[in-house]
Structures are given as structure tokens and as C-alpha cells.
């Protein structure tokens, strides 16, 4: 058991707006963590902060012991690819897909380490096993897929590389409940081994009992993980 993600005293935001307040989080290998919270309480911003996509951040973020946090303001996305290469697999919210690539190419684009690029065929097979409906669509441009299929492709893209940390941002958002459940189940099927996974979700019921622990997020702070009876008492 080693610490995959170690966040200490992280604050992040956009301009004068501070979204994440002094947040501490440790995630160990093999863990599957759910982060629940309402819209606008900083779930996506937490992911963005890890990926270096916020406007500014303070504090330390370590991925397997390597410091990737930056204590200065940053151009959005300027350093993201460097951070991602440390072993992040981000499955972003919304339509962050490449419309013109086919499903096959799209999956390949997720394989950013040279090793996973070499094994991409085999990986692709594995992912297609999980997402059955994509098998028929392998040569279709992603732009033509429906919302659920797009989400599958986007999650599959994240699964292509041997990441240390998978981060899925609201995988069920905007999907019909049935499809959403299917997508979530696929996420839970990923064999973690030495890596870890964070799933952000608005709907607690979907994650309950399926992940190792659930952390609440409220107004930029983590709640509920602190096991004191006080906050547990307050939760209900």
C-alpha cells in the first residue's frame, strides 16, 4: 500500500474566486474513492487542480511521491500534459472528445506512454470487452455517437494507458439512468492493481456500497471522511 495521491493544503480557484479551500486528501493504491457533492462545490475544480487546469493553486499535490502542484498562477492547460504523463487518466465531464476521430483512433489517443502505445491493440480489445456496444462502431467517427456511447469512448480512452490514478468526473451526468448505470459499472470493473480511482458523482445512491469509501464535498472542503462521531451525527 503506497500513497498514489497525496494532497496537502490545496487551495485553488479561478481569479478572485476560490473554489477549493485548504484541502487534504490521501488516496492509496488499490483504492476506489467516491467524491460526492452538489454542483458547484468544487468536485470538478479538484480534478482540474490536479491536472493543472485551474487559474491558480497553492499547496502540494503528489502523485506517487512526485510533486506536481504548482504554487503559482498558470496558464490553463499549459502544464497539463506533463502532469498527465505522470500517470493520470482523466475521464472528463461533458463533451471532451475528438469529433472527427474514429472510435478506434480515439481509444488509441489515450495511450500516452510508449509502452501502452505498443500494446494498444490488446488494450483496445480489453476495453471493447467491457463496452460491448462499441464493438460495432469501431470505425465510426465519435461525433456521430450518442451521448452514452460518447461517454463510454471517453472513459475507454482513459483506460487505455497504465495510469496510476483514474479520475472520472461525473460519469453519469446527462445520461439516461440506465445507460448511466452501465457506464458506472464499467468503471467499477476496471482492475485497479497498483492504481487508484476517484469517481465524482452527484448521486450518492449510485456509489453507495460500490466504492471503498465515499467522501463528501461541500463548499470546497472534504466532509465525512473525518471519522469523528460528530460529523457522522451531522450527516443524517
Amino acid at each position, binding site marked *: 500500500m503506497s500513497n498514489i495521491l497525496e494532497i496537502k493544503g490545496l487551495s485553488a480557484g479561478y481569479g478572485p474566486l476560490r473554489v477549493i479551500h485548504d484541502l487534504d486528501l490521501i488516496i492509496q493504491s488499490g483504492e476506489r474513492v467516491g467524491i460526492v457533492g452538489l454542483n458547484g462545490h468544487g468536485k470538478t475544480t479538484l480534478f482540474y487542480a490536479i491536472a493543472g487546469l485551474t487559474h491558480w493553486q497553492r499547496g502540494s499535490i503528489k502523485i506517487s511521491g512526485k510533486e506536481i502542484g504548482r504554487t503559482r498562477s498558470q496558464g490553463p492547460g499549459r502544464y497539463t500534459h506533463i502532469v498527465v504523463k505522470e500517470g493520470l487518466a482523466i475521464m472528463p465531464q461533458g463533451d471532451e472528445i475528438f469529433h*472527427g476521430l474514429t472510435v478506434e483512433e480515439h481509444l488509441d489517443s489515450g495511450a500516452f506512454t510508449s509502452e501502452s502505445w505498443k500494446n494498444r491493440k490488446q488494450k483496445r480489445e480489453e476495453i471493447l470487452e467491457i463496452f460491448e456496444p462499441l464493438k460495432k462502431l469501431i470505425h465510426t467517427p465519435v461525433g456521430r455517437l450518442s451521448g452514452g456511447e460518447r461517454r463510454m469512448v471517453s472513459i475507454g480512452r482513459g483506460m487505455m494507458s497504465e495510469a496510476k490514478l483514474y479520475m472520472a468526473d461525473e460519469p453519469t451526468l446527462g445520461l439516461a439512468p440506465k445507460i448511466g448505470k452501465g457506464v458506472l459499472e464499467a468503471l467499477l470493473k476496471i482492475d485497479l492493481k497498483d492504481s487508484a480511482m476517484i469517481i465524482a458523482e452527484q448521486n450518492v445512491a449510485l456509489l453507495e456500497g460500490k466504492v471503498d469509501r465515499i467522501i463528501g464535498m461541500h463548499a470546497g472542503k472534504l466532509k465525512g471522511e473525518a471519522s469523528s462521531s460528530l460529523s457522522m451525527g451531522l450527516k443524517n
Partner: protein
Amino acid sequence: MNDIIFLIINGITVASIYGLIAVAVSITWSALGLLNLSYGFIFSFAGYGAWLAERHIYGEPIFVMFMGIAAGIIGGIMVCLIVFIPVHDKPNFTIRGMIGTLAVSLIGGQILLQNFGPKAKLLPEFFGYGKIKILDVTLTADKIGIICSSILMLTIVVKWMKSSRRGLEIRAMMMNPHAASIVGIGVRKTGIYVMAVTGAMTGLSAALLSQTYYLSPFSGLTPMIKGVSIALMGGLGSVRGAVIAAIILGFNEALTTKFLGGRYVLMTQFALIIIVLIIRPRGIAGILDKAREA
């Protein structure tokens, strides 16, 4: 009849050279969102690189040609470092990028003028002086060489874009730069690849054109304007469109020269472009451009 075929071959020869620049403009625009108007400078830079290589290193024509390509790559990377990398995340990037590349071509042209003087230089013939006769038409080795080498270059680039990992990265970045950074594709690094490849294409066209015409500090200007207008007609961002447009304009050039006279070439050309653009505002293959609607 003979005349027309001869002219058409001429047209294709010209089209293949300008087509290279057009494809370069197209790729840069779609991959980086940069309207690179410094290809004129890169063109002259590559030409002088080839000329210097011929003078000082080794005079073998094919070697000179490759040196031209190498110089084009260097020029492309230079423009990328000077303009694209500092500017790409600033607001109003498109206008900034365009004016920045114009400034580069202004400075670069003047520096070339300072170092080499206004006198025109000539490169050696790369493909010898052989002639082939097919169906009453004499083809010089020169023309065959130009057409073949530019087609070869295009094929290599397209193939590379289609199948290699870098190509995949470039195409991914064309479509959604933000998502690309999320999957670990760096804008800057990809920018350098793109500019190097397009620089190589410009370098080849510079070497090919300078052997038939001549080389001067500002000789890249006309090819660039032609290349840009071909790219425009084909629809910025589409390689296929650029190739089709290059062929159409090549024919147009040949036919206009034949029936109206050489000085009407530009006029018919622009009339053609304007008509195409008014009918299809995004050029011949404009639909593909939807990927980058920023």
C-alpha cells in the same frame, strides 16, 4: 492539342509546388489555429539554406535538395519558437499569430537581404536534363521530378498524419485542444512537430521552385500568396481540399495562359476563388473544418 497537354503538365507542375505550400498552410491552420503568413520567409530561408549547402558543403543536386528541406524544417521550428509558443495561449490568438508571422517575415526578409544582397541566386537542376517522349509530348526530367517529389512528399506527410502516433496527436489537437491536453498531448511539442513538417514541405517547394526560377530574399512572397489562396479555396484545414484546389488552379493557369494570355492568370484565379467562396463559404472541403470552431 499538344499545346494543351503541354500547358496542363506545366500547370500540374506549378500546382504541385504551390500545393505543397497550400497543404502546409492548411495543416498549420487546422492543427495550431495559426494562420502562418511567414511561409514566404521560410521559403526564402530554405532556398538560401540549399544555396549555401551547394556552395560550401557539397554540390550534388539531390543533397542540395535535402538540405533545402532541412533548412525549411529549421525555419519552421524557428517560427514556432518565436511566434507560436509565446502567443498560443494569449487572447485573440488568431490575429496575434497572423501579425506575428507577418512581423517574422518582415524581419527575416530584411535579414536575408542584408546577408545575401538583392541579387538573385540560382540552384542547380536536381533532376538532370533528360527528356522522355510519351504520345508526342516531351516531358523533361525536371517536370517529372518536381511532380514526383512533391507527390512523394505529400504522400509521406499524409501517411504520417494518418498512421503514426504524432500524427494522431496532431489530429486530436486539431479537433479539441483542451481535450488533447487532458490526454497528455502538449500543445507546444505538437506545435513544433507541425511546424517542422510544414517547414519541410515549404523547404522542398523552395528548392524545386528556385531551380527553375531564381532565389531572392522576397521570392517567397508570391508562392505564399498563391499557396494561401489555394488553401483558402480548398477550405482551410483540409489536405484533400487543398490538393483539389491546387489541381483546379493549375489547370486554370494553364488554360488562361493559353486562351487569354499570361497576365490574366491572377485575375481568373481570384475570380475562381471568390466564386467558390461565395458558393461555399468554407471552401471546397469546408465541412471538415467544423472540428475547429473556436
